[in-house]
């Protein structure tokens, strides 16, 4: 098993955090993982992305041009990375921000209304957890319990009040995938 995932969006949308959550959960499940960010003189409102590898074997290249999955949180990300996705790959789209559809027919597209669900559960900041839920439900490479346990550890102590909110966002994201 090897997943090569590109997660891309505006700075502040939580794309890099989704990547970090994926590698932390992967590590907890004993997988080999890497997280490599794009870095550069990005302007406010510009696009930031990261490359994540989850594998059952030690990771060679931490960077790649043909991801198995793309998580596109904004329009420029879909434009930039759709062409490179491996045939048969999956594209996850934040459908509240991206109005375009996936144009290739050899890809599976999953439209997740991250912002709308985040508002519904009570905090616009948890949109990334919604997307994480959709990814986990679709790919089944990580156990939902691992993510939920990670959320509990992430918000330990005085931040514990955020645990139910994040877990609900994660579960609502999972429910977006049939």
């Amino acid at each position, binding site marked *: 098993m090897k997943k090569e995932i590109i997660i891309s969006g505006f700075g502040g949308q939580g794309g890099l955090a989704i990547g*970090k959550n994926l*590698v*932390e959960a992967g*590590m907890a499940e004993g997988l*080999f*993982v*890497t*997280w*490599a*960010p794009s*870095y*550069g*003189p990005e302007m406010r409102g510009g696009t930031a992305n990261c490359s994540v590898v989850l594998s059952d074997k030690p*990771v*060679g*290249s*931490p*960077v*790649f*041009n*043909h991801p198995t999955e793309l998580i596109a949180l904004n329009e420029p990300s879909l434009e930039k990375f759709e062409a490179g996705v491996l045939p048969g790959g999956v594209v996850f789209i934040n459908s509240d921000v991206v109005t375009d559809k996936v144009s290739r027919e050899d890809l599976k597209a999953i439209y997740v209304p991250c912002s709308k669900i985040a508002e519904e559960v009570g905090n616009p900041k948890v949109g990334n957890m919604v997307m994480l839920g959709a990814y986990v439900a679709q790919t089944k490479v990580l156990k939902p319990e691992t993510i939920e346990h990670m959320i509990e550890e992430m918000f330990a102590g005085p931040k514990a009040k955020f645990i139910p909110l994040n877990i609900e966002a994660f579960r609502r994201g999972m429910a977006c995938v049939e």
Partner: protein
Amino acid sequence: MEKELWKGNEAIAEAALRAGCDCYFGYPITPQSEVPEYMSAHMPKYGKVFVQAESELAAINMVYGAGGAGLRAMTSSSSPGISLQQEGITYLAGAEVPCVIVNCMRGGPGLGTIQPGQSDYYQCTRGGGNGDYRTLVLAPSNIQETVDCIQEAFDIADQYRNPVMVVMDGLIGQMMEPIEWKPYKKRELAPKDWAATGRYGREEHNIINSLYIDPELCDVHNKHLAEKYALIEKNEVRWECIDCDDAEVIITAYGTPARIALTALENLRAQGIKVGLFRPITLWPFPEKALHDLVGNDNVKVILDVELSSTGQMIDDIRLAVEGRKPIRYLGHAGGVMPTVEEICETAINALKEVK
């Protein structure tokens, strides 16, 4: 031991602290600014010294002073900043002051780009400073190896009284990976009775100096340095060979390109193409004999060197080791553009077709 997720640059700083780094002097520059950031937050807690110097030039001279006083001193920077430090590095080498210098390389020349590069190979192995000197250069290719190298670098520096450089392309500094904090094997080190820490009743002053105005003495000093470098070449050379035994194509690469080449190797092997990877871990001393012997094998048809450099720099050391016995091909990009797995596979296949 439990694995922890670390960002490369922060892991470099933490590794240095665990190795007993007494003082850090540096100046921020992308893509390594998290090193001084981490040091500034954590060194005061342990009673260690952190100074954000006014420039890289000042930082390396602070390292010279602190190292000369027998402390474990370190600086880190990225390519243009390391260029500024060359004068200090040759003084450190000449005066035999141990220190650790981290170069988280970006593309050049000049200010170049902040994206990952490997075009400082000449600078770190040949020396940008004047004189017959060498710095021992470690080039890890993942974060685990980076923290292991950083910790050992302080011991190596002390053992030989010589600057040790740890160089990695900017991606290794920026990425995150799980690592284990393994206890590193400490070396037996002599007391620093040469350090300028005060006379304490000794008859002679300890003087830290690189000036030998008497030509005879300068000649003797250079011979002594040359003997030390020969000893380092004998003891410290490191490399890794993967799937080289039956390989027809040997890919040579270090740092991140070696990882990309490893994925290419797996893909090519799956197609039945016999490819091996030769990865130098010390850039100086270069694993010349190991590569020399490897390419002497009859099964080796061609060597493909891959670097983050437009012209290739390590390729010169490869040519010296190969001695013209086998053809060498080159694949490189500069400016932060990474060679892709597909490109490496295609180049390796074409190279093999050409020579067969």
